[in-house]
């Protein structure tokens, strides 16, 4: 659940950090703002927004579509009926383990993404010469607020819940055949992504505003 997505998460995170660093330097035209502020901006952008939200969107695409197509295939091939014949509450049986796994694993992935994003910014800044390592590291260490990480993890847990429940719902109520399984998978990604963005705003408003 998500660990097989580490490759795409790592690539996304490193390049995300690199782009944030270079764009921040590019936009930093005020001579009164020290260059090390780039480190602060990169760190906070990644921790507060990019790591939890972007990575959750990536996971909605990978994990969400996988859940919807797996459960959808089980529905159209009567495997869910076979579970119910055995007296199993199929929705709980199929969803709860996935939900528990996502809630436990997604925060780890996002924390790794934070680390890789900040590392990506450092490497890009140093390689392109727009900011020295010393200044970047000073910025990353400056005025760090630990609650930002907690906030990111809270968001990630909420997003994990949304991805799994929406995708499982889409898969569970699939009717028809292979074409409809594909449609459910697409709808799972679309609805999960929209709900992630909506809840991103709601949670930010509730917790940070």
């Amino acid at each position, binding site marked *: 659940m998500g660990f097989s997505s580490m490759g795409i998460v790592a690539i996304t995170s490193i390049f995300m950090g690199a782009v944030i660093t270079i764009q921040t330097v590019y936009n930093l035209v005020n001579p009164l703002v020290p260059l090390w502020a780039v480190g602060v901006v990169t760190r906070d952008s990644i921790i507060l927004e990019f790591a939890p939200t972007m990575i959750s969107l990536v996971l909605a695409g990978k994990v969400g579509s996988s859940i919807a197509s797996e459960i959808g*295939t*089980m529905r159209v*091939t*009567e*495997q869910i*009926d*076979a579970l*119910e*014949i*055995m*007296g*199993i*509450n199929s929705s709980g049986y199929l969803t709860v383990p996935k939900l528990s796994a996502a809630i436990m694993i997604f925060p780890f992935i996002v924390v790794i993404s934070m680390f890789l994003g900040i590392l990506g910014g450092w490497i890009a800044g140093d390689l392109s010469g727009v900011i020295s390592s010393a200044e970047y590291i000073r910025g990353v260490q400056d005025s760090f607020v630990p609650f930002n990480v907690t906030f990111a993890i809270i968001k990630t847990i909420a997003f994990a819940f949304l991805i799994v429940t929406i995708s499982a719902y889409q898969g569970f109520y699939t009717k028809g055949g292979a074409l409809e399984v594909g449609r459910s998978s697409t709808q799972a990604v679309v609805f999960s992504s929209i709900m992630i963005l909506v809840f991103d705003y709601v949670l930010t408003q509730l917790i940070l505003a």
Partner: protein
Amino acid sequence: MIELKNISKRFGEKIVLENISAAFEKGKTNLVIGGSGSGKTVLMKCMVGLLEVDSGEVFFDARNFSSLNFKERKPFRQEIGMVFQGGALFDSLNVERNIMFPLSMFTDMSDSEKRDRANDCLKRVNLINVNKLFPSELSGGMKKRVAIARAIAPNPKYLFLDEPNSGLDPQTSILIDNLVKEITEEYQTTTVINTHDMNSVMEIGDKIIFLHKGRKWWEGSNMEITSSKNNELKDFIFASKILRELLEKN
């Protein structure tokens, strides 16, 4: 014995089953026949509780099944084995685990006991050396046999098979028919089979009910079916020109 009393089911405005009553006896292969869309699968799903009936009652040995809720039906579930049209084997489990699955749900057997039972069931359906294969590695006939093995693993009293011959070659189809007949007699199960395979009807149909447009049009045995005067039934069973000619000759 399974008894159906005035079963009706509709989806929206469409009436799928209308006032169906029937009795299926223990130790006999009871066939529900009819064309595609005649309501066979819906009737079977209503019998096993996968669909709720709109009206009417289903009795399993005089116990009213349809009036029970999900929790109350749990003890009945152990007594029901079902083979779905496509087998419905769990893709993520190998053959052995598929057969052990209902045992894990219904019994306190140890893993080795469950494995032994799975092997016994596989032997019963004439499959060997397939324990570690996954459903995707099996042929259609093998899938059906594994599905039968899974259905009989918890020693069910009631066995339901939804079109067990569909998509199979004639030889495998006969093999499945004979297997179901043998299991029914050996385990004394009340077996209900949905089919539109006329060979099955003639070979194993101890009792047959014919559904047409959601209603029961005829009831009898394989000995009586060809002499029936019911026009809809005659159209159904004599749809094959070869069969019609053969019966006329005899």
